[in-house]
């Protein structure tokens, strides 16, 4: 990958005057991976664990990622910690869109990874249906150690990126985005429903969904 050790002739002169030869990609990635600024999106119980992670005991500062900012415009790591409801999904997507490139996303906990135990109409079944995710952390909630592990894995991931191609403009923006580790996002709305079932308007009585009554129900009971 590269190194930050001084290279060249073993003369004290070159060393002493601060010269360094390395790959630009490596240098940029080295800077990026050790200065991740997390945007803490603590939505429910996982948010408490995230506070523990940022606090003195687990101390994410040891890995260069303690500068949590509460504005997405200063952040490059979005940690979604908690249950993302559809109502909140709009805000979460806005936060993601407002973060400057390059940006990475960690889905912390099973709720944000897959909906978790909330197999429900009001909960987003995995935040990857509204934004690209780099790392999923299992657990309900995951221990802060697990999230630290995720941050370390993210640093490994950042090491493999090639930011220079983006900077010198040899890439299309889409390639650059794929290169930045976030990939493409394919929306899959209503994948559990028959095609067209959700297009009908609910206020129109003729358009009600075909309803299979799972339980035998007494009909003709006057409400």
């Amino acid at each position, binding site marked *: 990958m590269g190194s930050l050790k001084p290279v060249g002739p073993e003369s004290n002169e070159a060393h002493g005057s601060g010269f360094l030869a390395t790959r630009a990609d490596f240098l940029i990635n080295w800077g990026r991976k050790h200065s991740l600024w997390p945007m803490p999106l603590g939505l429910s119980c996982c948010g408490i664990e995230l506070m523990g992670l940022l606090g003195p005991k687990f101390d994410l500062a040891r890995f260069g990622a303690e500068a949590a900012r509460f504005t997405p415009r200063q952040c490059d790591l979005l940690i979604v910690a908690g249950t993302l409801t559809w109502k909140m999904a*709009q805000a979460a997507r806005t936060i993601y869109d407002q973060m400057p490139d390059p940006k990475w996303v960690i889905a912390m906990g099973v709720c944000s990874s897959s909906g978790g135990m909330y197999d429900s109409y009001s909960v987003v079944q995995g935040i990857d249906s509204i934004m690209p995710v780099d790392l999923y952390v299992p657990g309900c909630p995951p221990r802060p150690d697990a999230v630290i592990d995720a941050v370390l894995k993210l640093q490994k991931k950042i090491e493999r990126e090639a930011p220079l191609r983006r900077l010198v403009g040899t890439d299309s923006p889409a390639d650059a985005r794929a290169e930045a580790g976030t990939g493409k996002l394919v929306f899959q709305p209503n994948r559990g429903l028959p095609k067209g079932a959700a297009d009908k308007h*609910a206020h129109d009585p003729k358009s009600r969904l075909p309803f299979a009554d799972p339980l035998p129900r007494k009909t003709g009971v006057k409400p």
Partner: protein
Amino acid sequence: MSDAAANPALAASTSRIAAALGALPHGMPQSPDGPVIEVELANLHAALRALREHAGFELCTFVTCIDHYPTTPRFALHHQLLSLAHNDRVRVRCVLPGESAPTCTDLWPGANYMERECFDMFGVRFEGHPDLRRLLMPDGYDHHPLRKEFPHQGIEPDRLYRQWDRARRASWAEESR
């Protein structure tokens, strides 16, 4: 269920409610958990006003709806009222012929959010409500989740997806310019 001898408190509140409603047509079915009143939709607002002004029910503790699918009419609206002075409750039940009902926010301003939730979950339109928007589901969602025909797995808000998709494409177009 309980007669006057067995439950004097219930008998007292029942007679107070009956006096407040006066000539207003209403039914009073037997119920194990306190007095219940049944009114027609046309008399609903007048009954609520009478209960507030003449029977001392100064709090509306909830407004909700029950979906009796597949019977028609399917929706029954329930107002639960509380009197702090008399320490009793009454439930006002009204079967909706359609999907709209008069608001009671002019009587109890606190009913605002409960009616919004009821609209969100069941699609009951409250006429005269000051701000009838969805409460729990995102704006632009097309369905009402607590209706019985709503699928158990839920329906994802695909209109939101389309909106985000458009915004994303616009920002990409800007970037590549």
